[in-house]
Structure formats: structure tokens, C-alpha cells
């Protein structure tokens, strides 16, 4: 069901991107927008899912929440990597340099570090219950650090070169539809990947439980 939705939204999105008007100033490289921003949205959604699922785990002590937190974190790191790869390619083409320490860039990079540390923390901790607790705590504090990071970067002059929020109308005519389709497609893809990962983790937990019971 979700797989079908991914294929469908992905196809619509790809079609709309091809049909989207060429940017007068930037040329074809501007089409990175339709990949870059939607994956960023999906990555933020993934990290928020990790933190919220972690909080639910601490509250309810249900392992399923922990599996969801782990799945979302892993998908989030992959999506965030995509953002950090497409961003510099676009930046090199338009701003003239790969990396500019722009606020949004720096926050995304720090998020990437935080959730990589989250995954490493899990692999360096022994005992599934302890791993779940530690990871939940780190996921929650990691999300709290995001607004602080924004404020911190503001202090350093706020050399923002990222465009303003889209609600202020920085998208040209005919660019709205592929952009919106991209966001839908990226969120559906995030949901699908997280579900797959979540099912895998559930099977793994089941196998571990069976193995601990000994041969039938």
C-alpha cells in the first residue's frame, strides 16, 4: 500500500519536475530545489519522530516505540546526508562555493552529527533495555538543542544566504506544484522506509526472543 503510494507520488513528482519552468537566472541547477528542500523536510520530520517516540518509550516502556525511534533516526540520517550532499552541489553552482556556514546549513550539519552520535550510542551500549533508555534521553535532548543552535548562529552575524521561508513567496510561477509534490513524495518515502525498517527491527526482536528460548 505504502510502496504503491511511494511509486505514485514519486512518478508525479518526477513528471512535474521535468515540466517545471527553467529558472531564468540559475538554469537547470535550480531543479535541485525539488530534491533538496523536500528531503530536508522529511529529515526534520524523522528527527522529530525519533524524539517523540523516545519520549513515549520512557513513558510507556513499550519496546515498539524504541524500534520506531531507531528506524526514524536511521532514515533521518540518510535523508539528512542527501540534504548535505545536494546542498553544496547547488551552492557551488549558484553561490560559488561549496560550504558557507550559513545558519540553516550549520544547524543541519549539527543535527546530522547529533543523530549519528545517537546511532553510535546505541551500538556502543549493551542490553536492549538500557540502549533504549539511553537513546531516548539523547534523542530528546538532541531535539531541544535545535532551537538553541539557531539562536547561537544568530549571534555570529546571521550571515543568512538561504532564501527566506517559502510562505513569503520566493517561488516563481509554476514552481509551486512540483515543490509541493516533492514534499509529499519525500514524506511518503520517509514513512515507507521507516515502516520497512520498523518491521525489520520487529522481526529481529522476535528472532532474538525465540533464540533465547532455545530450540523448539
Amino acid at each position, binding site marked *: 500500500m505504502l510502496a504503491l503510494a511511494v511509486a505514485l507520488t514519486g512518478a508525479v513528482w518526477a513528471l512535474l519536475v521535468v515540466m517545471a519552468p527553467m529558472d531564468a537566472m540559475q538554469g537547470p541547477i535550480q531543479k535541485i530545489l525539488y530534491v533538496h528542500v523536500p528531503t530536508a523536510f522529511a529529515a526534520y520530520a524523522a528527527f522529530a519522530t525519533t524524539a517523540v517516540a523516545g519520549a513515549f518509550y520512557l513513558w510507556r516502556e513499550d519496546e515498539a516505540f524504541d524500534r520506531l525511534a531507531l528506524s526514524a533516526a536511521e532514515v533521518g540520517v540518510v535523508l539528512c546526508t542527501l540534504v548535505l550532499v545536494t546542498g553544496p552541489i547547488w551552492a557551488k553552482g549558484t553561490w560559488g562555493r561549496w560550504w558557507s556556514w550559513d545558519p540553516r546549513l550549520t544547524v543541519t550539519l*549539527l543535527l546530522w552529527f547529533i543523530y549519528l552520535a545517537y546511532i553510535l550510542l546505541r551500538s556502543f551500549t549493551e542490553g536492549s533495555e538500557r540502549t533504549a*533508555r539511553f537513546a531516548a534521553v539523547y534523542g530528546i*535532548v538532541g531535539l*531541544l538543542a535545535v532551537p*538553541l*543552535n539557531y539562536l*547561537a548562529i544568530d*549571534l555570529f552575524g546571521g550571515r543568512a544566504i538561504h532564501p527566506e521561508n517559502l510562505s513569503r513567496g520566493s517561488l516563481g510561477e509554476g514552481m509551486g506544484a512540483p515543490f509541493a509534490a516533492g514534499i509529499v513524495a519525500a514524506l511518503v518515502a520517509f514513512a515507507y522506509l521507516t515502516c520497512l525498517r520498523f518491521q525489520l527491527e520487529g522481526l529481529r526482536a522476535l528472532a532474538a526472543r525465540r533464540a533465547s528460548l532455545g530450540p523448539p
Partner: protein
Amino acid sequence: MNVLLAVLWKDLLSEWRSRDRVVSMLLFSLLVVVIFHFALPPGPPAQAQALAPGLLWVATLFAALLGLNRAFALELENDALSGLALAPVDRGWIFLGKAIANFVLIVVVQVVTAGAFGLAFGAPVLAHPVGFALVLGLGSAGISAAGTLFGAVAVRTRFRELVLALLLLPLLVPVLAAATRATTVLFETGDLDPAPLRLLAVADAVFWISSYLLFEYVLDE
């Protein structure tokens, strides 16, 4: 409240008797000062002064990482950590005791390191004692709160020193940035810049409150 005082007193007393943490942190941060001297390009004193605030905070943060690791590694001896976890008290108070002890330790190390920066880099550390004390206090408070919470996490993992650094450094970027900013402005103009101090206060509040609440889940038997 009694729990807080008991944990704080125990930590400070055992540190006072052995002094191994504070001495190794001090030596480490002084070494960092020396290393920085060789890492920087030779230039006019003004250039060294401009870099001093950032370097001071980097040296502090690294020395703090060293000390925070020991804070809980020490408790592993004789299984004292399990004793703390099993104590029938609110774990929030244990956190506060531990965090304040770490705070004291970090401030001591930082004051000496600041003195070294004053001597070696010509930083005007004595020019504005009240303002400087405020910045040092706010910055160290943020480091010690998050450091105590994740020190308790890291001590129960493999590669604990490495894990603590990986966990803490990305979280403490706001504290480091704001403290550096406030120190720079203070050294250059003698004024307290409200914007970084506000951020430090907010970051401290976020880290102290969240760590106080979440400490319950990181202490295990």
C-alpha cells in the same frame, strides 16, 4: 535537599582528598594553552588576544570532558554507582549534587586556565572581574549540566571517553558559541553583551531542567 548536599559533599571531599581529577584537568588545559601557542601563526599580540576567548573555551570544554568522564568512572569502583541508583531518593537530587560538584571543578580549572591565557596571550582577564565571572559561571553551568547527564550515560557504554565527546560536543555548540561571543565582547569593549548572555541563560535553563528530569532514566542498577 539533603541528598543533594550529601552527594555534593561526598564528591568534593573525595576530590579534595585525592585531587587527581582537578590536577589532571589543570595540566591538560595548560598543555592545551601551550599547544595552541604553537598552532597559531606568529603575529602581533593583538591577533593572539582576538583568538584568546575562543581558545579559552575550547580548552575548558576539552578539560571538562576529561573530568566528566572520571566523575562517573570513579563511581564504578566498589559499585558505588549501583548504590546511588538503589538509594530510595529522588534521582533529581542526586543529579543536582553531582552536577554542582562538576560545576565547581570546571570553574576551578577554568579560572586557572584563564590566568594562563592572561599571561601567555595577553588576554585582559582581570580587567572586568564581575562580568567575566558571570560569563564563566553561565558557560560552565551549561557544560556541567549536559556533561553530568551524558557522563552517566557514557560510563555505561564501551569506549566511554569517545562516546562522551561524540554525545556532548554537538549539543554544547550553542554554549560554546555564546560564551565565546560574550567573552570576546567583554575583552574588547568591557561591556556585557546581552544577546549571548541571554542565550547562555536559556541554554543553561534547557540543559538543567531537561537533565534534572531525564537523569532518572540514565542511572541504572
